[in-house]
């Protein structure tokens, strides 16, 4: 699994590629938690390059969505290949995520910049 990182107007954009199985899910979880600790709360995750996601991978996204909700942040997943989308659908969790066709749409779906303190 690979993680490519970019930033657009204060939004962290992570592009994932490869297999997200129980081994790589741990790596991904650490990567997400580290970004959250650094204060990132507006995330777009591009899944276009993901070949496979296991239930362990799905758990990491549930955890991420939950942590972001607690931090009043937001998350949009985009470009899910059909096989990946099916894993979300099968477990009945697609409704918990905001999903977009591509990165541009994902960025437009993110709610406006949170009011600065």
């Amino acid at each position, binding site marked *: 699994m690979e993680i490519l990182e970019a930033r657009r107007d204060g939004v962290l954009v992570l592009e994932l590629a490869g297999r997200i199985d*129980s081994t790589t899910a741990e790596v991904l979880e650490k990567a997400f938690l580290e970004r959250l600790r650094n204060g990132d709360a507006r995330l777009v995750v591009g899944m276009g390059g993901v070949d496979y996601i296991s239930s362990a991978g799905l758990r990491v996204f549930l955890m991420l969505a939950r942590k972001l909700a607690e931090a009043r942040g937001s998350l949009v997943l985009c470009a899910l290949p059909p096989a990946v989308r099916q894993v979300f659908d099968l477990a009945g969790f697609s409704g918990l995520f905001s999903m977009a066709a591509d990165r541009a749409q994902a960025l437009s779906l993110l709610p406006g910049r949170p009011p600065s303190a």
Partner: protein
Amino acid sequence: VSDTGAGGRRLLRNLNSLLDVSKALALELDVDSLLAVILQKAAGVMDAEMSSIFIHDEAGQRLLVVSGDLGKGKVAIPLGVGIAGHVAVTGQVANVSDAYQDPRFNPEIDKRTGFRTRAVLCAPLFSHKGRLIGVIQVLNKRGGGAFSAEDETLLAAFASHAGVALDRAQLVESALEKERLEEALRVAHEIQMGMLPRHPPSAGGLDLVAALRPARSVGGDLYDFFERSGRTWFALGDVSGKGVGAALFMAVAKTLFRAHATSEASPARVMAKLNEGLSLDNERAMFVTFFAGSLDPESGEIEFCNGGHNPPFLVRASGAVTPLPQAAGCALGIIPGFAFETERLRLDPGDALFLYTDGITEAMNEREEQYSGERLVRRLEALAGRAAQDVLSGVLEDVDAFVGSAAPSDDLTVMVLRRPAS
């Protein structure tokens, strides 16, 4: 007294103390006790004020300091740094008469302990195969002055005994540690397997079998079945992830299922209760895909509820194999309050319901190809109408043949419920 006499006596004394050391070291198999003995004997034999050992941490490319003042492993220095680090790299004895004049000397440890280092004699510790075990260092010859060439030879001889003894003790320790871990996992495996029911209900001639194979010692798959007021209750689930974490969540899911399925009226009610229980304090967002049902063996009618699990296959006696409709529910543990619904189907005589976890369809061979749902359907079509045990074995044998010598990648569970042909 002539010089030769004094030299001879010193040699004899040295040989005696080495023999002593060698005996003492041979008796110790515990790493910590051995380190203490080495520290004490080194200072004694070498007539030094202080001794310390630097244990080579191969993975970390560093030396862990062991001394009376600093304890064990609280201070680490990189290979190559300081006099000891230098000796670890060169493998040669170093004899320094005034540490503070030597550019390699690292005064950091003196600062911590308040000790004032003057003379340093330092030798590498090797295993008998020549692997670097660490470095031993003695500080400040009693009575002042530098360590002599004779001291160098003596410490080198001492170090060769100590290195072999330490190597052996470390090997024993890691073997014991491995054995303890394996034993713990073996017990965990037995406990987990012991949670699975052994005797399938057979009311109304129902033909029910199940099998679970964890990919590691413990896993996150589960199944259950039991009889309650004339109906056969059954369930099969798959916890997200693998290993010990998944196994603990599995144990909770299994326990909660039994508790609620023996009192709640419908599969949907059981799922709702199970979902509430698993959602509580679920910090790690673990979940279990779960399929639960109850069957009336007389009529073949099944009430079921699918919580995000891959749909089981209905295997008709005629050979038609169709998946149940995709779950309307969601996997358990994430969305408290989710409204589950009970669905229904009917097994005619000779029909079977085939439940499985994705360890079957995602079983991988050495070319990293998956067994796949298509292959499973073809296999089930060929096995239609056969006894439940034949269907189960027939599928597992086909999966095994497909996987070949590849290591199992996921837990694998199958359950077959078949209504006998009339």
